[in-house]
């Protein structure tokens, strides 16, 4: 891409704070990327522990370990934290580290706003987590925050609304930064259609965030005023409409699903060509497919609400528009497969996670197609089939892509190769464990087991026991990942500038670890 690497070490013209002040006051995109990634890692273990408690309770029918209300708190907080505290911050970490490096920019467009966008996040995270200690415990109405339950709860509900506001603000600031960086800070010669696909997917994701987060903020503001200021936006007794909340919420939350998966598409689109040693097949069609998915995501929201009652014409519209998303998604899957076709493939850990992403995300996509069929969805709504579907999308999709990306770029970030043997252990334990947890949930859902319950009928026992065993395998295998990351930070074989033989792009022209300041003089891209 570039014939000259313009990387510089710190020139010493700034006195950098050290210790905690370095991290609190940093405006460096690499520092902030690291902060996002560690925040996501900590929250992954917090929300993952909640998942293990949920699965432990569900190992047997009947109530074993906890009060049903605490179970509801766990399912709600697990969802909220995994979405807003793990997947989104992890992708923001990737964006902060990689977007300027891939574009040949010295930093993000607004470094101080970048610092603020990160540091409000731990505040929101603490507010969410500390709500467990408040009278009445944490929120228990589901991550979807539906009224009337969400209007009736205690003080933790107000705290959660405030936390959601703060996390939304953080996302909007981050998105403005990313869009502005991509549109205004690219190296000379790096046209939009020459950008690495990861930058494209993040550009489109950032637009999605700006077009949806204010809608979520509006919805939770109305919840807040309904709770505290006597309004009746969603209170049927006062002339309001609780179903309106669902429409507004899902207008945000369906594009949110793509906010959680498009950057994953971007990471996989970087990893597969590297280890197939071939350029990405159908680059332009990948860009157009990503944009198509984003646009379509705004006209499908009511497929989450088929059971609330709506005219048949509306059901048909939302059913067919949802199915239409399979077309651009299929384009992407076929392009990844075509990239691998006749490639000189090797199977290092990032590639293993990327290939498992392609296979397992596709399973999640197909079960999504099943759920898109309105009459089928009415049977499967709020069953474990839905739980299986979105965990295939978000665990073997988003989370596995995050793992692929971390293994792929960690040598560039730390300057050390990770332990490949441990990486492969992490991969195989994760992929086997993940399938043991979530595949049986399809059968549970088809048999009619409802989600969000701490107890269940006897006939569901065996599949629940299998799922719980899988959950503990999957959960504890993440400790292997922690060891790999800590080992790579501490030391290991020195990574070269171009870590992977087949890697292309500006980030591989700078030394490993990437110096604190890079591309102070813009590279020229031919």
């Amino acid at each position, binding site marked *: 891409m570039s014939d000259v690497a313009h990387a510089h070490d710190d020139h010493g013209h700034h006195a950098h704070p050290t210790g905690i002040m370095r991290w609190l006051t940093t405006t460096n995109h690499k520092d902030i990327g690291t902060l996002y990634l560690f925040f996501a890692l900590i929250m992954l273990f917090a929300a993952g522990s909640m998942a293990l408690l949920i699965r432990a309770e569900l190992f047997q029918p009947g109530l074993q370990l906890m009060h049903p209300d605490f179970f509801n708190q766990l399912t709600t907080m697990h969802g909220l934290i995994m979405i807003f505290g793990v997947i989104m911050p992890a992708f923001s970490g990737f964006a902060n580290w990689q977007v300027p490096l891939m574009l040949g920019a010295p930093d993000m*467009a607004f470094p101080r706003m970048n610092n603020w966008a990160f540091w409000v996040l731990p505040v929101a995270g603490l507010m969410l987590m500390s709500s467990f200690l408040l009278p009445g415990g944490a929120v228990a109405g589901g991550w979807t925050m539906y009224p009337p339950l969400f209007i009736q709860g205690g003080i933790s509900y107000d705290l959660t609304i405030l936390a959601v506001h703060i996390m939304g603000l953080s996302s*909007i600031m981050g998105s403005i930064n990313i*869009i*502005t960086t991509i*549109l205004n800070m690219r190296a000379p010669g790096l046209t939009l259609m020459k950008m690495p696909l990861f930058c494209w997917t993040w550009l489109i994701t950032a637009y999605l965030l*700006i077009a949806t987060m*204010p*809608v979520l903020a*509006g919805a939770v503001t109305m919840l807040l005023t309904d709770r505290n200021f006597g309004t009746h936006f969603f209170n049927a007794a006062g002339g309001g409409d609780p179903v309106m909340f669902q429409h507004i919420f899902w207008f945000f939350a369906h594009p949110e699903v793509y906010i959680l998966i498009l950057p994953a598409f971007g990471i996989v689109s970087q990893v597969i060509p590297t280890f197939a040693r071939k350029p990405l097949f159908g680059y332009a069609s990948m860009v157009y497919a990503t944009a198509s998915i984003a646009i379509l995501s705004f006209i499908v929201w009511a497929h989450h609400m088929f059971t609330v009652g709506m005219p048949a014409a509306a059901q048909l519209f939302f059913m067919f528009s949802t199915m239409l998303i399979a077309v651009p998604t299929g384009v992407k899957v076929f392009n990844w497969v075509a990239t691998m076709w006749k490639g000189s493939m090797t199977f290092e850990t990032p590639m293993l996670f990327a290939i498992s992403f392609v296979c397992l995300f596709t399973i999640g996509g197909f079960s999504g197609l099943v759920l898109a069929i309105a009459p089928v969805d009415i049977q499967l709504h709020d069953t474990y089939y839905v739980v299986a579907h979105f965990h295939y999308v978000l665990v073997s999709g988003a989370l596995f892509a995050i793992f692929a990306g971390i293994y792929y770029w960690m040598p560039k970030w730390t300057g050390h190769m990770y332990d490949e043997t441990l990486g492969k252990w992490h991969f195989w334990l994760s992929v086997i464990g993940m399938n043991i947890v979530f595949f049986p949930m399809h059968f549970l859902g088809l048999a009619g087991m409802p989600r969000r319950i701490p107890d269940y009928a006897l006939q569901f026992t065996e599949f629940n026991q299998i799922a719980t065993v899988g959950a503990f395998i999957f959960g504890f295998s993440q400790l292997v990942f922690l060891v790999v990351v800590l080992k790579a930070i501490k030391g290991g074989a020195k990574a070269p500038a171009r870590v992977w033989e087949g890697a292309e792009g500006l980030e591989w022209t700078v030394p490993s670890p990437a110096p604190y300041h890079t591309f102070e003089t813009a590279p020229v891209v031919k």
Partner: protein
Amino acid sequence: MTDKRNGKYRTAVVLALFALGLFLFTLYTGLK
């Protein structure tokens, strides 16, 4: 490229105004 980088404030302001407008519009739809 200097010109393009100077445009970053305009890009950011347009995006921020869009977000603010959308937030207010959502509240307005609730009022109807």
